C-alpha cells in the first residue's frame, strides 16, 4: 500500500504546505514583500497563488519595512493568528532583529506564558547565485543561540513541506531557512504528507564507520561525499539535522556512540557556528567513546565574495566532507 506521491521541488513543497495550512486553518496568514499575486507571488514564487486562492486580506504584500513586517506578524500572533512572514533574504533579518529576538522570542517568557507567538519567519539565503557579500549569509547560529526561537533548515522537498506544516502548527516562533541553491531540487513527495516533527533529525543512511551530520543544501553535498566514501568501502551514517534548534541530540549522539567518529558540515562560517555546539556536545557526551576528534566544516572566516571562483571556494564541497571523513578515519 504505497502512498500516492507527486514530484515537486522545494518551492512547490513550501507553497503546498502553506496552502494546506491556510485551507485547514483560517487563522494562518502570509505577509512579506511581493508575496501576493499582484506582485508575482514572491520573488521566487514560494507564495504564488495564495492570495488568489485565500484573498488579499490573508496574503498581504508589504512595504519594504522588515521591522513593520515582523511587528505585524508578532501582533497578529499574540492576537490568535498564525502568520507566515517572509523576510526575503536572511541578511535582511539584520534590520528586524529587535522584533525577532527581543520580542517574538521573549514575549511568551516575559508575559509569564500569557502571550505565545505562533509565527513562522521564512527566508532564503546561500552563496552561489552571484549576489555577493550582503545576500548570502547563513546566520542560523544567531537564532539557535536565542532562547524562545526554533530554527529549521530543510534539505529536500519532503522535509520542506513536512517541517513547514509543523512550523505553522507550532505554538512558538520558528525561523525557516531556505537555501536558494536547493529550491530546484525535486523529489516524489506523498500527496497527503503528515507534518514532520520539529527537533527530530533524519537518518538518511545507516552506517558504521563514521557519522556525517549536515543540513540545508550542504546535506546534498554530504550525501555525495557518503556515496564517494562508499566506493572506498567506508560505511557512513548520514544524518540530516533538519531542525537546528532544538537539535536532535539523541539521534546524533546515538549515531556517534555507534560509529565513534563524526563530521559536521554547514555553509555558515565555521567559527562560532552551529558545528561548534554539536562538536562540543559530542566531545563532552562521548568523551570515552570517540575514536578521533570531531571534524567541523564550514565557511572560511570571510564575507561571501562575488567572483565566481572565490564564491565557489567559499562553500564547503563534498570533496571537503569526504576528506574530513577520511581524516577522522585515519586517526585514533
Amino acid at each position, binding site marked *: 500500500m504505497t502512498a500516492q506521491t507527486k514530484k515537486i521541488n522545494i518551492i512547490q513543497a513550501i507553497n503546498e504546505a502553506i496552502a494546506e495550512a491556510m485551507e485547514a486553518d483560517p487563522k494562518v496568514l502570509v505577509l512579506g514583500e511581493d508575496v501576493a499575486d499582484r506582485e508575482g507571488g514572491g520573488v521566487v514564487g514560494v507564495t504564488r497563488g495564495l492570495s488568489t486562492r485565500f484573498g488579499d486580506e490573508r496574503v498581504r504584500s508589504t512595504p519594504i519595512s522588515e521591522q*513593520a513586517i515582523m511587528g505585524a506578524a508578532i*501582533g497578529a500572533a499574540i492576537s490568535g493568528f498564525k502568520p507566515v512572514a517572509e523576510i526575503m533574504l536572511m541578511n535582511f533579518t539584520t534590520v528586524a532583529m529587535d522584533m525577532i529576538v*527581543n*520580542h517574538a522570542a521573549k514575549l511568551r517568557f*516575559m508575559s509569564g506564558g*500569557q502571550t505565545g507567538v505562533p509565527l513562522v519567519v521564512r527566508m532564503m539565503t546561500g552563496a552561489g547565485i552571484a549576489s555577493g557579500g550582503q545576500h548570502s549569509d547563513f546566520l542560523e547560529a544567531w537564532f539557535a543561540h536565542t532562547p*524562545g526561537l526554533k530554527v529549521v533548515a530543510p534539505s529536500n522537498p519532503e522535509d520542506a513541506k513536512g517541517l513547514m506544516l509543523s512550523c505553522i502548527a507550532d505554538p512558538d516562533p520558528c525561523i525557516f531557512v531556505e537555501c536558494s541553491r536547493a529550491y530546484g531540487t525535486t523529489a516524489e513527495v506523498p500527496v497527503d504528507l503528515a507534518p514532520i516533527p520539529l527537533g527530530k533529525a533524519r537518518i538518511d543512511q545507516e552506517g558504521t564507520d563514521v557519522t556525517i551530520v549536515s543540513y540545508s543544501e550542504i546535506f546534498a553535498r554530504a550525501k555525495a561525499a557518503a556515496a564517494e566514501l562508499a566506493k572506498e568501502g567506508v560505511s557512513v551514517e548520514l544524518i540530516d539535522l533538519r531542525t537546528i534548534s532544538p537539535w536532535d541530540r539523541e539521534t546524533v549522539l546515538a549515531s556517534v556512540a555507534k560509529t565513534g567518529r563524526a563530521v559536521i558540515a554547514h555553509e555558515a562560517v565555521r567559527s562560532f557556528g552551529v558545528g561548534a555546539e554539536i562538536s562540543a556536545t559530542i566531545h563532552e557526551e562521548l568523551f570515552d567513546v570517540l575514536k578521533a576528534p570531531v571534524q567541523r566544516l564550514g565557511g572560511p572566516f570571510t564575507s561571501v565574495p562575488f567572483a565566481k571562483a572565490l564564491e565557489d571556494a567559499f562553500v564547503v564541497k563534498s570533496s571537503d566532507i569526504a576528506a574530513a571523513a577520511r581524516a577522522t578515519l585515519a586517526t585514533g
Partner: protein
Amino acid sequence: MVSPTPNRPVPDAATQLDIYRRMSTIMQNDVASRRIVKTGRLVMPYYSPRGQEVIPSAISVNLNDDDKICTIYRGIHDMIAKGVPLRALWAEIAGRVTGTCKGKGGPMHITHPASGVMVTTGIVGSSMPIANGIAWAAKLEKSERVTIAYFGDGASNIGAFHESLNMASVWKLPVIFVCQNNGFAEHTRYENATSVDFISKRAIGYGMPGFTVDGNDPLEMYAAANEAVARARAGEGPTLLECKTFRFFGHVFGDDDHYMTKEEKAAAMEKDPVPAFRARLIADGHASEEQLVEMETQIAAEIQDAIDFALGSEVAGLEELTLDVYAATGAE
C-alpha cells in the same frame, strides 16, 4: 499644529469623573511607588509617569475592555488607565508569582491581555510595529477593536516609528499612535534630537491625520482621542496624536535633572494636571470636595491593599526560570 475640529466631543460629568479617578489612581500609585523604591523595599529602575496622568486616562475612557494597548517602560499610567488590576500589577513589580507575568517580566514588560495590555516593551519605538499587528488582527476579524501604541517623543526618531506609521496608513489599520511628548528623551532635550517643531507634522508624510494636543488638558485629550477612536472604528485608519506633557521625576527615578534649569522644571510642575483637573471638576460643579476626597481615599486603600498583597505574595520558584520559554516548557 492642526487641531481637532471645532465641534469636538465633550465628556459628560460621569466620564470626567472617570477620567479623574484614573488620574488620581495613577498619581497616588506613583507616590507609593517612589516611596517604596526610595526606601529600597523594591529594587527596580522606576520610570515615573508623574505629570503624564491625563493622556492615558482621557484616552482610556474612550476604550472598551477588548481594545488593546502596547506600551513602554514608562507605561504604568497607561496600564492603570486601561484597567490592569493593581494587585497583579504590584505583585509583578515586586517580582512575585502572583504578578501579571509571575514576576518574570517585571515593570518593563508587564503584559495583561485580560485588560488589553498586550505588550510592554523596553526597546524604544517597538510598541508601534506590534500594535499594527494587533490592529491588523482586529481588522481581519472584522471587529471594531482599536489598538493604541504609546511611545515617547524620543521614540519618534527611531526607524520603527516610520515603518509603523507608513504601514498602518497603507493598510488603513485601526491603530492610534499616541506620542507622549514630555520634552525629553532620557537627558536629551526635544529640539536637540528632533528635526521638526511638532511631531504631529510627521503625519503628513504618511497621509494620516495628525494632531498636537495639550496632554495636560483632559477635555482636549478626550476630544482628540474620541475622534481618533471613532475614525479607527469606522475603518478610516490610523491617527497620530502628539500629546504635550512633562515628566516630573526625570527619566528614571533618582535622576538629578541637571539637564534642565530649576526654573524650567518649576514652571512645568506648576502646570500639574492632577490638582488642576480636580479644581476644575469642582468649579464646573461636576463633583464636590467630599465626593473627591471619598474617591481618593478609596483609591488609596486599593493601592495599599495591592501593595500588601504583593509584598505578602510568594516569589516564583526556580523552576520558573526555564518555563514559558516555549509552550511545551523550555528545555535546553
